[in-house]
C-alpha cells in the first residue's frame, strides 16, 4: 500500500461493521481466470503440439489466480454508510465508491448457474449515468443478497431500513408454451428454417460432394442462429412480472436466473412492439427505458429492458397502465399524420399518429413492425423539432421527445409544421407541470422531499 493511499484510508477508514463478500467469491471468479488460461494455453499447445509443459504450468496459473482473488476478496468490504452504499476495494490502490441510494434506478439479483449450485448471488445496483453497472456485488450468499436488497430498497424508498421485503402480486406469467411459440414466430427462426431447407435442397439436387462445401460454409450461420434462439428462450424462461410497493419485480431464466426490481417512478418510457408474425397470434412485447440499464440490453427481447417478452395485447395494455399513470391507449385519441406524409413514407404513412393527455404522449408507427411508444411528460428530457429539405417543401416537421438511453424512442414524424411547433411548446409546458406532480425519488417518504423540484 502506497503512502498516499494509506493516508487516505486512514483519513476515511472502512467502518468496522462493513462486511466481506461470500468466501466462495475467489473460487467462482478464479474459474473465469482459469478458463481464459486454458483457452490461450490450449491454443498454444495445439500449435506447438507439446502439452507437457503447459500441463505443468497450469496449476501454477490456477494458484496465482486463486491467490489474487483471495487477496482481492480480503480487501473488499461493503456496507451502508449514511444514505449511500459504500464499497471499498483494491489491494495497492484503494478505491471507495459510494452509490447514493435515493438515486437508485434498479436493483437486480443475478444468479449464474454455478452460483445457484453453490448458493450465491450477485447483486447489481443500477444508477443513472453509468455506462455499465455501477456497483456489482459479486458474490453474496443468496440470503444475504435478498436481505441487502430489501434493506437498500427500504432506504431508497425513505422508510425504516429494517422493513422486511414488501409483499407482491403477480401480474403476469409467461407460460413456456407461449414463449416457445413466440420464439418459433420470430424472424430469426424463420430465417434459420429457410436456411436449413435451402441446405436440404442443395443436398437433394447436387449430391453430397457440392453440399459438403456449402454445408461447411453455412454451418456457422446455422449454429449462431440456433444459439441465439436458444439463448432467448432460456433467458426468458419462467418469466414472472409482479407488482409490489417497491415497484415492478421481474424474475426469469432457466439456467442463469435474474430477479430485477424497478422502483416506482423509474420507468422513463414504455414501448409495445409487434412483428408481422406475432400479429397472427396477437402477441406484443413490452420494452421499457430505465436509466442505468442503458442501450446495451435493447432489441433482442432478452435483456434487462424487457418488461414482458411476449403477452396478449390486452395484458400488455394492463401492464402499461400500471407502469405509467394515465397511459391508457383507449383514453388517448391518436391524430394521424397528413396525407402528404406519403411522399416521405409511401408505406405506412397511415400508421403514423400521435396523441397526448395530461400524463403521457403516445406515438404509433410501423406497418411490418408495429410500435406504440408511451413517454410520460414528467420524464421528458428535452424536445426537438427537426425539418429536412423535403419536409420543408411539404411543410412537414418531425418532433423528437428525448428520453434516457434505452430501447424506447418517441419520434413523432411528419406533422404539419405549424402543429409540430405548437406541439414542441405544449410538450415543454406539459413536462414542466408534470414534473411537479411526479413520484418523489424516495417514493415512500412521508413528506414532500422534493422541495427543490419546483421547476
Amino acid at each position, binding site marked *: 500500500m502506497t503512502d498516499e493511499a494509506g493516508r487516505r484510508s486512514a483519513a476515511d477508514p472502512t467502518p468496522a461493521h462493513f462486511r466481506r463478500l461470500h468466501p466462495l467469491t475467489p473460487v467462482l471468479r478464479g474459474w473465469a481466470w482459469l478458463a481464459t488460461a486454458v483457452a490461450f494455453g490450449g491454443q498454444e499447445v495445439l500449435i506447438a503440439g507439446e502439452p507437457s509443459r503447459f500441463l505443468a504450468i497450469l496449476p501454477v496459473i490456477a494458484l496465482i489466480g486463486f491467490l489474487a482473488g483471495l487477496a482481492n476478496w480480503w480487501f473488499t468490504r461493503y456496507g451502508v454508510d449514511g444514505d449511500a452504499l459504500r464499497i471499498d476495494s483494491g489491494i495497492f490502490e484503494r478505491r471507495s465508491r459510494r452509490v447514493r441510494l435515493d438515486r437508485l434506478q434498479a436493483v437486480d439479483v443475478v444468479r449464474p448457474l454455478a452460483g445457484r449450485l453453490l448458493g450465491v448471488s450477485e447483486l447489481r445496483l443500477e444508477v443513472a449515468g453509468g455506462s455499465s453497472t455501477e456497483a456489482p456485488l459479486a458474490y453474496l450468499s443468496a440470503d444475504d443478497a435478498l436481505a441487502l436488497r430489501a434493506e437498500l430498497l427500504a432506504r431508497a424508498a425513505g422508510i425504516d431500513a429494517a422493513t422486511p421485503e414488501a409483499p407482491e402480486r403477480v401480474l403476469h406469467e409467461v407460460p413456456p408454451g407461449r414463449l416457445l411459440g413466440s420464439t418459433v414466430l420470430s424472424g430469426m427462426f424463420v430465417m434459420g428454417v429457410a436456411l436449413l431447407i435451402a441446405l436440404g435442397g442443395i443436398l437433394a439436387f447436387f449430391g453430397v460432394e457440392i453440399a459438403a462445401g456449402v454445408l461447411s460454409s453455412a454451418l456457422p450461420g446455422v449454429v449462431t442462429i440456433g444459439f441465439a434462439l436458444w439463448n432467448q428462450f432460456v433467458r426468458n424462461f419462467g418469466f414472472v412480472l409482479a407488482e409490489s410497493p417497491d415497484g415492478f419485480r421481474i424474475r426469469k431464466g432457466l439456467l442463469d436466473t435474474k430477479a430485477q426490481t424497478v422502483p416506482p417512478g*423509474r420507468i422513463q418510457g414504455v414501448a409495445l412492439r409487434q412483428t408481422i408474425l406475432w400479429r397472427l397470434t396477437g402477441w406484443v412485447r413490452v420494452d421499457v427505458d430505465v*436509466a442505468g440499464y442503458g442501450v446495451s440490453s435493447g432489441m433482442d427481447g432478452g435483456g434487462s429492458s424487457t418488461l414482458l417478452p411476449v403477452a396478449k395485447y390486452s395484458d400488455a395494455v394492463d401492464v402499461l397502465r400500471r407502469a405509467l399513470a394515465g397511459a391508457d391507449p383507449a383514453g388517448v385519441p391518436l391524430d394521424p399524420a397528413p396525407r402528404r406524409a406519403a411522399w416521405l413514407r409511401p408505406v405506412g404513412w397511415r400508421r403514423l399518429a400521435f396523441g397526448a393527455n395530461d400524463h403521457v404522449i403516445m406515438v404509433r408507427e410501423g406497418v411490418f413492425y408495429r410500435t406504440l411508444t408511451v413517454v410520460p411528460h414528467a420524464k421528458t428530457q428535452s424536445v426537438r423539432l*427537426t425539418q429536412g429539405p423535403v419536409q420543408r417543401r411539404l411543410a412537414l416537421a418531425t418532433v423528437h421527445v428525448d428520453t434516457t438511453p434505452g430501447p424506447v424512442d418517441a419520434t413523432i414524424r411528419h406533422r404539419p409544421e405549424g402543429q409540430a*411547433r405548437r406541439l414542441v*411548446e405544449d*410538450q415543454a409546458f406539459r413536462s414542466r407541470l408534470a414534473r411537479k406532480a411526479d413520484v418523489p425519488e424516495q417514493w415512500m417518504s412521508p413528506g414532500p422531499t422534493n422541495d427543490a423540484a419546483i421547476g
Partner: protein
Amino acid sequence: MDQVFAPPGETWQRVSHRLVDLRRDLLVGWAIALTAIAAALGWWLLGWWAAAAATALGAVTVGWGLWLIDRNWRAWGYAEREDDLLVTRGVLFRELTVVPYGRMQFVDVKSGPLERRFGLATVQLHTASPATDARIPGLPPAEAARLRDRLAALGEARAAGL
C-alpha cells in the same frame, strides 16, 4: 428565419460573427493547400490546363463555401426563456431544441486552440438523454461564462429527479 423555427415572442440571440471568420480562415487555408497540391499534380501529370481547372474548381468551392458559412451562421440562435433554453441551427436540415433547465445534468464550456485565437467558446448543455442536442458554438468567452453560470444556477433551482 421563417415562422416554424421563429422564437416565441422575443428574438434569437446571435452567436458571434467571429465564428464566420474562424470557419472562413479554415476553409480558405484548406482550400489553398489542397488546390496547390491538386494543381501541381495536374500540371505534372496532365498539363497546364489541368492545373487551371483545379484552381478554378478551388476558387468556386471557396466562393460557395463562404456563402454557406455565412448562411449557416445566420441560422444559429439561442434564447433563454423563464423555464427553458432554446437553441436553433441548420439551414438545409433545421433543428430547434428545447431543454427545460430542470432537466440539465451538467454544462460544458469548451474552447480549442483555434477557437481561443478567435476569442470564442462553445457551451453545451447535457441532459440524461444523449439525444439532447443543445450546443451553442461561437460565443465570446465572457458570454459563455455568463451563460454557464446562469444555466448552472437555474438548473439547480429547478432541479428535479430523473
